[in-house]
């Protein structure tokens, strides 16, 4: 800065006096940060010290030595081979897979139901809008634990016993012990049907790409949905019949007091899936509604003025813009659903928390290790989910400068 003459102020210009160190923002911020770090370090040190002392006093060996010891307890549902002769490590994986099963299926159900209800709430059809509104208000205002109890004890545990099972189509049956589905048993030649299905899927993707190109080139639209259905259903269906139906079903049959054979879905799993996904869907519906309502009214008017039908307007103009508003809170609903799945403990579904953080911790007493691992597992699931949703948001939903 140089003293210029075109200003009336006489004398040389002095640089503004620096304020006292205490009043400078940079200095204050630095001091606060250092203080925070010191406090955090002290807290961690105290806790770690305390834990080490307590463990030493109770003669508990720390470490993961328990991992390969025999667990000695059973798990009512496992996606991997597991018995009471298996190790604690295998119990960890069995529980984790059970949690992931609920999380993945629950997220799919909740998303589909949530979008339907959310869009339905904005419907111009009075009845549909009211039903969707009532659904949201009811489901999101009753505590989730209560809803799980309702589905488990009031609905599924009140079903008739195996001898009076409710018969469902295709040889399935439902009773107080669970849902019994016929299990498919492939016979020689079934590989060909699967191959046909694979070819059908590849062909329909090719058709979809070709139809898209052709629409860009000539403007003509092609009934992609119908050709896809035909290729994916009829092609393998034809091969299946031509080869003499090389797939048999093992039907669940009543033997003694229960059903044998087939696939059994435990009532605990059903209650958890229904409860979690209907509950989360009510929140997703609100998020979807807010997202659509967040798109300015002028967008719909401009699209209508151009002659786009209401379906095309929703698909090409409103939803792409609404997704930008929807995805961040949707991600946190997915994380909520995953974390809420630990309420499984209350109705006896063997999820990760109930198996590992519950039974394994109780039997081994390795509280620190087990809790740390549990936190690590949920942190990992959460970070992977968020990372995926961020990626989706960046590359698919958010294509705007």
């Amino acid at each position, binding site marked *: 800065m140089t003293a210029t003459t075109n200003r009336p102020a006489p004398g040389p210009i002095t640089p503004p006096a620096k304020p006292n160190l205490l009043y400078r923002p940079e200095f204050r911020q630095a001091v606060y940060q250092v203080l925070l770090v010191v406090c955090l370090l002290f807290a961690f040190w105290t806790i770690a010290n305390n834990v080490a002392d307590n463990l030493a006093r109770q003669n508990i060996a720390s470490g993961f030595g328990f991992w390969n010891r025999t667990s000695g307890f059973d798990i009512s549902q496992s996606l991997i081979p597991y018995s009471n002769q298996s190790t604690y490590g295998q119990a960890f994986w069995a529980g984790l897979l059970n949690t992931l099963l609920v999380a993945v299926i629950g997220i799919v159900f909740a998303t589909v139901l949530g979008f339907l209800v959310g869009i339905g709430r904005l419907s111009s059809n009075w009845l549909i809008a009211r039903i969707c509104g009532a659904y949201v208000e009811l489901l999101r205002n009753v505590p989730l634990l209560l809803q799980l109890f309702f589905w488990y004890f009031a609905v599924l545990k009140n079903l008739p016993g195996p001898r009076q099972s409710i018969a469902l189509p295709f040889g399935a049956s439902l009773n107080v012990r669970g849902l019994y589905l016929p299990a498919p048993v492939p016979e020689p030649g079934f590989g060909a049907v699967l191959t046909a299905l694979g070819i059908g899927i590849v062909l329909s993707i090719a058709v979809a790409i070709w139809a898209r190109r052709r*629409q*860009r*080139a*000539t*403007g*003509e*639209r092609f009934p992609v949905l119908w050709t896809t259905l035909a290729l994916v259903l009829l092609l393998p269906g034809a091969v299946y019949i031509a080869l003499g139906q090389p797939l048999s079903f093992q039907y669940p049959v009543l033997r003694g007091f229960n059903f044998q054979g087939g696939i059994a879905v435990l009532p605990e799993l059903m209650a958890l899936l229904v409860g979690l996904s209907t509950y989360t869907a009510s929140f997703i519906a609100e998020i979807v509604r807010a997202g659509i309502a967040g798109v*300015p009214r*002028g*967008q719909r*008017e*401009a*699209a*209508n*003025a*151009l*002659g*786009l*039908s209401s379906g*095309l307007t929703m698909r*090409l*103009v409103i939803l*792409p*813009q609404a997704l*930008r508003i929807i995805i961040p809170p949707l991600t946190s609903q997915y994380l909520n659903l995953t974390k809420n799945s630990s309420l499984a403990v209350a109705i006896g579904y063997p999820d990760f928390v109930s198996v590992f953080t519950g039974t394994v911790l109780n039997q081994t007493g390795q509280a620190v290790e087990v809790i740390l691992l549990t936190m690590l597992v949920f942190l990992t699931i959460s970070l992977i989910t968020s990372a995926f949703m961020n990626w989706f948001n960046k590359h698919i939903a958010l*294509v*705007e*400068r």
Partner: protein
Amino acid sequence: MADTSRQQLRRAHGAAGAIVLSGVHKWYGEFHVLRDINLTVKDGEKIVICGPSGSGKSTLIRCINRLEEHQQGQIVVDGIELTSDLRNIDKIRAEVGMVFQSFNLFPHLTVLDNLCLAPVWVKKKSRAEAEKTARMYLERVKIPEQALKYPGQLSGGQQQRVAIARALCMNPNIMLFDEPTSALDPEMIKEVLDVMIELANSGMTMMCVTHEMAFARSVADRVIFMDRGEIVEMAPPGEFFSNPKSDRTKHFLSQILNH
């Protein structure tokens, strides 16, 4: 100049009228927004509508492409009557282009995609053909170089010109404008008005809500003054500005011309 071609066009199309409103009423609940509107717009005619805020100008032109529904009377656009028949509404929307005060471009699409969306999905044109038309109209509104940008990257005047081009891409017979320059800074108003004047000279039938009185003087065939949901006065611009009949018109003109 273009006057003669306009008159020829009008004579060629006879007196049927591109837009015919007869006895149109509309209510928002208890509130009577449009009262007994009678108006015939001939082919190639340019109508400018002005009037105080809340007088129902927007409502009137939004009724013409069914963004709003009228409750009484008859609206016939290009020989098609607007009823709740969805097929008629679709036909009319394909014939009528609309430009809004707030542009309403689709922010998630590039300028080119904004222009191609409706021709491809509604008129089922090929992408190549739609793109060719789109680039031609971008040229006409003098922003061919912005084709691949997103609306958020353009100035207000450029966005409004894109919006005009987007409407033109559907090859409409009639263009509706609802205060197209009201959201713009003064230096951008001219670039949009220039495009509209060029469009008017090309023989397009236009209905335009605006308070740009210079534009009304040079382009309009008739100027309409609306107040409290009624058409109070309707006259060619010369007569309208120099010799207004009603006191309400005089009052309104004195207010806006003194600014």
